[in-house]
């Protein structure tokens, strides 16, 4: 099972770029890397997913090096509303009989 390791917490300031790195040393060939965001008392929200290199959407970018043993979620110019817990998940597609393992996530606090 591909286990992930990410920082327990991070602080930053409004307007800054925030990078959260996740380590997944034993990632398998058919595993994808997915990031979710969760606000208190709400369900997680899908942010971005990737397999290799770089993926960008309107919310974030995901950088994956060639060896895929880590990944970095980049949030450009954060605001106070980006304060949340961010989860890095690694696993094969949902259509396989496999369960994603969620860690404790990274609690990101944005300060004014």
């Amino acid at each position, binding site marked *: 099972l591909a286990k992930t390791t990410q920082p327990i917490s991070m602080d930053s300031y409004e307007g800054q770029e925030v990078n959260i790195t996740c380590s997944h040393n034993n990632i398998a060939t058919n595993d*994808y890397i*997915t990031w979710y965001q969760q606000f208190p*008392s*709400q*369900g*997680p*929200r*899908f942010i971005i*997913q990737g397999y290799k290199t770089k993926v960008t959407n309107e919310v974030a970018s995901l950088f994956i090096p060639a060896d895929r043993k880590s990944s970095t979620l980049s949030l450009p110019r954060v605001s106070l509303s980006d304060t949340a817990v961010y*989860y890095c*998940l690694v*696993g*094969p*597609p*949902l*259509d396989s*009989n*496999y*369960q*994603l*393992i*969620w*860690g*404790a*996530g990274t609690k990101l606090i944005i300060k004014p």
Partner: protein
Amino acid sequence: DAGVTQSPTHLIKTRGQHVTLRCSPISGHKSVSWYQQVLGQGPQFIFQYYEKEERGRGNFPDRFSARQFPNYSSELNVNALLLGDSALYLCASSLDSGNIPYEQYFGPGTRLTVT
């Protein structure tokens, strides 16, 4: 478009009782997953259903069961409630495989308190 809906929002039960939680997926989504989230921890996978069949089961006791109906809605049942079952129960739906194989849409959750 309506997102994933769950009912009830909050629930208080006594030890030993039974509870049923309900989930309606996004229209067109055929896969539903259930998660338990204890305060301060990430969600723990309980079940995944696709086309009314169980496709995955997490490490939970047999007191936990679920089913998916022809309209793709789902129920999670928990028997003989324990204090440790107090948690936020999350339902997520997805299109299953596709371009983004892990894009799940979560509902707001049901907050279960067992006293």
